[in-house]
């Protein structure tokens, strides 16, 4: 009678046996990839496809979608991001029918349609760190299809600057007897550095084209408006300076890009260099270049790289995490952890906020998820080490009671109206309607109101930590909601009272003259300015150039 405790190892051995004829050493020929996938994967498998936020195992994704549904079916996809059309094709073609994921921005409409047509079962939407955690508990992949920069003949992998999710995925898969297949851009005799050892991988294929990477974190300064400059000034003087925010994460957007570009100018003029923004959990935003060059930034750890920033990062190895080979090292799992526990503030934008401060980017007809925002935008109850900002926020929240803990600053920055005069402040989030339409168990809320500490709009800053009741919180939010229906329904007397107490602060209360809020305050006003600020090291992707 065979030992019943090595089933997984036995299954792995059978998969490798089927794969063996299609490999030369560890290498699969590109022409054989479909056959290889059909050999290594079994129906009903849990498959992790590296659809990251930025880099995509696009050759493997397209090949998986081209597999025969007779051979491969009922797959359960676990992946961070559905970015490519092929990611949805695997469902439409009957190869997969179940999904656990984190973000699907580019494919959100198609995903919603699949749900409406009942052709997909969504397990859950997760935040990144949550999904990675489940890879080690109840969502361990049987096969993972990953993207790396290079492999050597032994099967060691070099991930290069854009590491993202790969280490987390591979560790979970490899050590539960799963199969690890990588697409690489090139095969080298000797890797610049070994990021994934050959003992953890099974096979690789050299893809016909380099894997696609989306330049998600590049924002053209030319598009930053005066209103965004005003809000950035308020954030810097009213929050960063007030609390002494030294360690932070910026959610990507033009609002935070404006803050980054105001550091060498406005923040410098306030004497804040060295007092704020020294340590970052952040991708290498091109808009951070002037602040780095001006000496604001001591360290940056990143989730992934950013297209065009590789040489700049390598040349600023005092600031960024780089390997002995000189190239950047990033890691989404560790950067998300840093954002949760080691940062004192998260600030980002959103599409809708309700009267409790709940914030969501969920809109009707789309199932998108939130990526890392729910993690970054949450208070970390497990945190124990103190910092001035954390302690102060905790004391503000405790009020007259004795504070037993601090609190992470979670700031939402949003203009009161979006395009087409859509109000950002609403009585009821679209998330509730989406929940009904899509049969979800909970409304898709990105950041919960009880985690939000401050809201910044063009009308001012609302400090929710200082609110003593739900009614005060509601009026504090109405008091910065401008001319939206929510804002105009404010109780004017209560709002004035909140302003007297400093719960609401208008620009003039913070000592800001709105006439100073012009684009002249930006340290760079174009992509070209950023290239110049980097001394020519930043090499922007084609779509961002105008010279």
């Amino acid at each position, binding site marked *: 009678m065979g030992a019943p405790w090595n089933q997984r190892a036995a299954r792995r051995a059978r998969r490798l046996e089927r794969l063996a004829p299609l490999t030369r050493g560890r290498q699969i020929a590109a022409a054989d990839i479909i056959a290889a996938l059909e050999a290594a994967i079994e129906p009903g498998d849990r498959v992790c496809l590296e659809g990251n936020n930025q880099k995509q195992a696009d050759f493997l994704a397209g090949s998986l979608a081209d597999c025969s549904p007779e051979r491969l079916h009922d797959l359960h996809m676990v992946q961070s991001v559905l970015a490519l059309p092929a990611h949805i094709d695997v469902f439409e073609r009957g190869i997969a029918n179940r999904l656990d994921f984190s973000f699907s921005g580019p494919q959100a409409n198609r995903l919603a349609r699949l749900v409406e047509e009942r052709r997909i079962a969504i397990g859950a939407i997760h935040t990144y760190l949550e999904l990675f955690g489940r890879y080690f508990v109840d969502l361990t992949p049987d096969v993972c299809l990953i993207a790396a920069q290079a492999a050597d003949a032994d099967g060691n992998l070099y991930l290069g600057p854009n590491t993202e999710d790969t280490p987390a995925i591979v560790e979970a898969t490899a050590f539960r007897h799963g199969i690890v297949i990588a697409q690489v851009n090139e095969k080298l005799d000797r890797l610049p550095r070994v990021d994934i050892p050959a003992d953890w991988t099974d096979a690789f294929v050299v893809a016909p084209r380099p894997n696609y990477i989306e330049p998600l974190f590049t924002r053209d300064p030319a598009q930053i408006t005066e209103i965004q400059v005003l809000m950035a000034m308020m954030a810097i003087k009213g929050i960063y300076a007030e609390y002494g925010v030294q360690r932070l994460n910026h959610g990507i957007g033009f609002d935070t890009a404006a803050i980054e570009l105001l550091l060498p100018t406005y923040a410098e003029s306030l004497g804040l260099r060295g007092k704020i923004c020294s340590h970052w959990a952040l991708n290498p935003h091109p808009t951070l270049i002037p602040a780095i060059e001006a000496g604001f930034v001591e360290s940056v750890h990143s989730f992934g790289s950013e297209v065009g920033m590789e040489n700049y990062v390598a040349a600023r190895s005092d600031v960024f995490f780089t390997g002995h080979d000189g190239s950047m090292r990033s890691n989404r799992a560790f950067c998300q952890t840093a954002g949760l526990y080691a940062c004192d503030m998260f600030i980002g934008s959103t599409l809708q906020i309700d009267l409790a401060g709940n914030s969501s980017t969920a809109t009707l007809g789309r199932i998108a998820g939130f990526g890392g925002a729910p993690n970054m935008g949450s208070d970390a109850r497990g945190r124990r080490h103190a910092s001035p900002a954390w302690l102060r926020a905790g004391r503000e929240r405790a009020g007259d009671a004795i504070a037993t803990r601090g609190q992470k600053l979670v700031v939402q920055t949003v203009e009161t109206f979006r395009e087409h005069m859509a109000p950002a402040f609403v009585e009821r989030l679209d998330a509730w309607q989406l929940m009904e339409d899509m049969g979800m168990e909970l409304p898709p809320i990105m950041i919960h109101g009880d985690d939000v500490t401050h809201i910044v709009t063009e009308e001012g800053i609302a400090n929710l930590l200082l609110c003593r009741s739900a009614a005060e919180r509601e009026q504090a939010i109405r008091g910065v909601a401008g001319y939206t229906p929510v804002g105009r329904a404010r109780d004017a007397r209560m709002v004035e009272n909140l302003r007297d107490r400093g719960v609401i602060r208008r620009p003039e209360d913070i000592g800001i003259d709105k006439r100073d809020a012009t684009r002249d305050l930006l*340290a760079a006003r174009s992509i*070209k300015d950023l290239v110049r600020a980097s001394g*020519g090291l930043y090499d922007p992707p*084609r779509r961002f*150039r105008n010279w």
Partner: protein
Amino acid sequence: MSRLQRHSWFEADARARIAGLVDADSFRELCGPHERLTSPHLAVLDLPVAFDDGVVVGEATLDGRPVLVGAQQGEFNGGAVGEIHGAKLRGLFERARRTRPAAVLLAIDSGGVRLHEANAGLIAISELMRALLAARADGIPVYGLIGGSCGAFGGMGIVARLCDALVMSEEGRLGLSGPEVIETVKGVDEFDSKDRALVWRVTGGKLRRSLGDATTLVDDDIAAFRDAARSLLARPVPARDLAALDADQFALAQRAARHADARDGLDVWRALGLPDPTAIPMLDAADFNRLLAPLSPTEAA
């Protein structure tokens, strides 16, 4: 505070460009917004109008000498020329023949004819071309300045080349059909309009300066445009006789033959013998002009 010292021409609106171009406080606007000469065609289409129909015209001085100035508002309908807009510019040139300024300065920022206005727009731009040529024939120099987001395309691309000389920044572009139109009609292999670096290597200020379409290349700085305008004003009125025309024609024929196979600014720069063509887009104006200086003079120099 490391605030940027330059005042960007690209970012400035029409009145800010004029204010920085001419002598301080010397600009007096004609047919200004208070007269509310708005487009009847846009109104019929129920579209927003502008009180100045997207162009600012008037008189000023430069180095104390009288000039007439026109500046298009690129942000309004892509700077496109409609009936009123075109009439204001035509009127500017007709005024030039009466008042005989030292020059007419035209800050161009336009995609060409305002299609909403159909024939009225076409007629307007044709009349403007005629009036410009008449002013030149009458001995009034006309100088164009291109550095805005719309560049000079379509009918305004033609207008630009009717000027005696052109000042361009690298951000400026000059062409006839727009890049998107070329791609739509001829396909992406012919011209990938999303390859912005390519678009600028084919229509941008540095390439135009290299071919001699532009006389002067400046940085994206209002003060630099002003200095270039002053230099043009200081030189003698360009010759307009048959000999000058024949010389222009000869130079253009030579140029067409020399660069017959060029598909990219890189090919042009290689043919001109410039070192390291791929690095040229990153040079600032001063370094680029130094690079160009030793070459045989281009026809507009």
